[in-house]
């Protein structure tokens, strides 16, 4: 743990003696320099800095110093803090704490409370202990409460064999720590603690207690008295089972009395966490909607007298929102890894560049290979041709991936053209579409009727072996 050159606990008031700094540790040096800045007006800060730098030096779980985490706490957030600090799950640490408490006959409990006292909360520099030192009344109260418990345990020890007190003695320290924490914790933490001890408080105010509570109170009292009676009558040394029975009765009393409240507290904690998760999700959604939809709506309002632009903006936004909602793609993500994505990419491009809506229907999907990329290129050419020359108000782009082949149909209800009057050297249809398909083992059929429109059907068998690769798997997904 500790480097041998340094005392296990940094010396008291070392800030007053700069000569004792350790220049080998620049990080620590920096801390002390900061400490001295605060030292002028906050003299009580001196020992809290000792603790902090002590923990800081060894912290490397997440790179941050050890801090309690009041966001994720059950009692003081110590376990959550240690978890984050060392990179464990808080639950693991919590289970570890409980096991430690049992193994050490209860000594781990006061250690937890000491941790609560001396580890600052996340986002804060002050420990509760630093404040408690100046709370002389609180110290007196703590000593008083602790000694009260000690006296009670001495009395109880005189009455039976002392097997239970082993667990109770450490709690003398716990009681003292708790008193100090209670008096000196910051307001928000106090609110959380109040929530935890609410059941005990409400037992005090008996005037507005409901009937169920009263009944529980009576049952608990009976069980408690019976349990204590059994425990106290033990010094007769009768049966081995009797202490166990008494213990059970006491536990039952506590469960009956406080159980419902603890349950509610656990539920509240859960709700609180869920609400936080929902709020985050909502914020994320709002950010997305703002980035895209609201911006587009603003643009649409500004160009309200230009229907063409309005339609284009609306289409582009619809596409983006759709791909985010149903395909889980972030806006601006244009990586194409599958055939269907490639088809939608064609839609995006043609709509943006040529201002004609493209109705896309894709059936099935498969990963892209060299031949399918060629098919996509031919489909793009056919779609661009339709957008440029046909004059149609909408282009239909249909793609179907079947186990043995892939088919794409590009269709418009535009002007059409006479296939025989197209000069043989015109690149578009001849080279970019038909030639490309043929080279990759596919075929292209162009049907066109003047005045009725054009349809280009592209077909390519699946599983064609590219140069140097075995035939692809013919099955989808």
């Amino acid at each position, binding site marked *: 743990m500790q480097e041998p050159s340094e005392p296990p606990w940094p010396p008291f008031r070392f800030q007053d003696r700069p000569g004792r700094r350790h220049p080998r540790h620049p990080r620590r040096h920096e801390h002390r320099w900061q400490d001295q800045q605060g030292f002028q007006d906050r003299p009580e800060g001196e020992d809290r800095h000792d603790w902090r730098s002590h923990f800081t030096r060894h912290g490397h779980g997440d790179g941050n110093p050890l801090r309690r985490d009041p966001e994720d706490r059950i009692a003081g957030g110590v376990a959550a803090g240690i978890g984050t600090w060392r990179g464990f799950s808080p639950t693991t640490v919590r289970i570890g704490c409980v096991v430690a408490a049992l193994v050490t006959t209860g000594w781990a409990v006061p250690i937890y409370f000491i941790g609560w006292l001396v580890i600052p909360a996340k986002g804060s520099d002050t420990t509760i202990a630093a404040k408690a030192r100046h709370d002389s009344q609180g110290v007196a109260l703590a000593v008083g409460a602790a000694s009260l418990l000690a006296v009670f345990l001495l009395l109880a020890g005189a009455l039976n064999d002392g097997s239970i007190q082993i667990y109770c003695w450490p709690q003398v320290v716990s009681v003292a720590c708790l008193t100090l924490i209670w008096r000196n914790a910051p307001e928000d933490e106090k609110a959380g603690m109040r929530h935890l001890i609410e059941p005990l408080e409400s037992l005090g105010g008996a005037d507005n207690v409901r009937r169920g509570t009263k009944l529980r109170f009576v049952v608990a009292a009976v069980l408690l008295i019976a349990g204590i009676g059994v425990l106290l009558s033990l010094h007769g040394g009768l049966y081995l089972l009797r202490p166990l029975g008494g213990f059970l009765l006491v536990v039952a009393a506590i469960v009956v009395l406080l159980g419902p409240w603890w349950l509610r507290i656990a539920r509240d904690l859960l709700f609180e966490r869920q609400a936080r998760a929902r709020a985050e999700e909502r914020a994320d959604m709002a950010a997305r909607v703002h980035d895209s939809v609201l911006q587009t709506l603003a643009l649409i309002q500004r160009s309200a007298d230009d229907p063409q632009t309005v339609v284009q903006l609306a289409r582009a936004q619809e596409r983006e929102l759709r791909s985010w909602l149903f395909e889980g793609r972030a806006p601006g993500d244009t990586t194409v890894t599958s055939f269907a994505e490639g088809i939608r990419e064609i839609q995006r491009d043609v709509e943006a560049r040529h201002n004609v809506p493209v109705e896309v*229907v894709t059936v099935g999907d498969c990963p892209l290979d060299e031949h399918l990329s060629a098919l996509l290129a031919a489909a793009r050419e056919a779609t661009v041709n339709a957008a440029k020359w046909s004059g149609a108000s909408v282009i239909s782009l*249909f793609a179907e991936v079947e186990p043995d082949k892939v088919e794409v149909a590009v269709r418009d209800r535009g002007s059409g053209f006479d296939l025989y009057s197209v000069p043989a050297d015109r690149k578009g249809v001849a080279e970019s579409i038909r030639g490309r398909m043929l080279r990759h083992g596919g075929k292209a059929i162009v049907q066109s009727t003047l005045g009725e429109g054009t349809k280009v059907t592209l077909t390519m068998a699946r599983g064609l072996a590219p140069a140097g690769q075995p035939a692809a798997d013919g099955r989808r*997904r």
Partner: protein
Amino acid sequence: MSAADGGDKSAPRVILVDDHGLFRSGVRAELGRQVEVVGEADDVAPAIELIERELPDVVLLDVHLPGGGGHAVITEVKKAHPEVKFLALSASDAPEDVIAVIRAGARGYVTKTISTTDLADAIRRVADGDAVFSHRLAGFVLDAFATAGAAPDVRPSFDPELDQLTTREREVLRLIAQGYTYKEVARELFISVKTVESHVSSVLRKLQLSSRHQLSRWAAERRLT
């Protein structure tokens, strides 16, 4: 109730169910001439009540409703009034939601971007008992059946007739998915419009009766991708 009065077909009586007031008033204004809008509802419970009171020819039903989705309305109304016909429409169409509405019993599905003339036409066809497939629905259906058929290892042993489309049905659906009208499909395949309609109705029936297991598996896959 004003059923067909005289030889001429009267305008179908229509109820609009959509949670967007703006959309309802827009459709009502545009359709006003061509159909008779007898009521509007904005959620599942009021819609069921209104439909059972008015018993319209066609219910124009949004796929997404706050109180449980369009299919909840169909399922409830169909129990007592199987004669009421539903035409589903939506703006954001996740395939599994659309298929759910069709399987509940809607006679067709169109997108909200449809033109008024086409919408009125679709309503009339549904009122006459035909099925109305938009190009998008045709794509979803092809996808659903293709995926189910392409995985022989999970092929269920239910009525195999229902689990598969015939070659002709696939051809019809493919053309519809490419934006062909029924008339154009008929001309392309050298069959009558009536035959096209019967193919589409048969697809609809298969979609509604086919093994639930298979189509829900398809929907689950869609959700994952």
